């Protein structure tokens, strides 16, 4: 009987281990689906730091999430962004768009409401 009890315990332990392994696989699948960095930590510690891109395979579609480059800060990125002509162009276009949007909205509403006339100041 004692041996049988031991066997039962061992069997139960083995089944518990299988459940744990299944849970771990499910957790890993959920992390991969959510794009979590922890799932790729075992494969490559470098990827966990976010230095290089993390390709995530999901039904044949590959997503890539790249982290910030090492040694970059908010201020240095801001300066390098404004030194780059094309990024600066996008920022300048945003500024021109904001100017156009706010100026006309305010001026025409004053005009239509009768506060101001076409000819001169209000």
């Amino acid at each position, binding site marked *: 009987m004692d041996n049988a009890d031991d066997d039962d315990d061992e069997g139960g332990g083995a089944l518990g281990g299988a459940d744990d392994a299944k849970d771990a696989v499910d957790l890993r699948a959920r992390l991969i689906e959510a794009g979590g960095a922890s799932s790729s930590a075992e494969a490559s510690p470098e990827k966990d730091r976010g230095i290089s891109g993390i390709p995530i395979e999901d039904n044949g*579609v590959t997503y890539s999430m790249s982290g910030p480059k090492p040694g970059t800060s908010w201020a240095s990125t801001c300066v390098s962004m404004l030194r780059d002509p094309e990024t600066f162009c*996008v920022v*300048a276009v945003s500024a021109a768009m904001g100017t156009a949007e706010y100026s006309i909205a305010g001026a025409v509403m004053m*005009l239509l409401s009768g506060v101001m006339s076409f000819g001169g100041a*209000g």
Partner: protein
Amino acid sequence: MEAPGKFILIPVCAISLTSCFVYRCAMFLAIRELPDVAVQLGAPAYLRAVPVWMTFGCGLGLAAGGTGALAALGAGAGDDGVDDGTRRLVMAAGCFHGLGVGMVKVAVLPAMSQLVEDRHGSMFGVGLGVQGFATKLAGGAVGMVGLSFLIESVGFTRALSFFAAALAVAAVAAGWFARGIKLRVEASRDDAP
């Protein structure tokens, strides 16, 4: 008129006039925003078809055209106020202006995010922060405060003419400097093989 009658009539007239002004302003804002929203709803197809430099140039050009049309309407009208025909033309100019702003707005965010990802290591927060700060600062300081000072000093028509000319120059410059920006438009999950 007896005093009690005045107490009733004056608030009623004031509320009617105010609601009329509010209606006109709301109508202008709605007509101006509709093309903006329409462009943003069709953003995926639009960004596949139209390159960034053309979007920037044509968008700012349309905004300049709308502003210039308002200035021209001002030159044609007097100080007597805005009649119905002129008001319709003002609405039409606002519609073109909104279309131009929408064209720029829909391309600015993906262009900025892709440029930041490619060149600055995916620090989207910095890119969006700088872009939003530039938009609000220019809109508030130049668009509202600057234009109000300009209108007070030289009048509505001249002030808007100046703004239209500045926007036209900005449109040409934006089209030129953005000619190297190319958006990556990836297939969606439904389109993926």
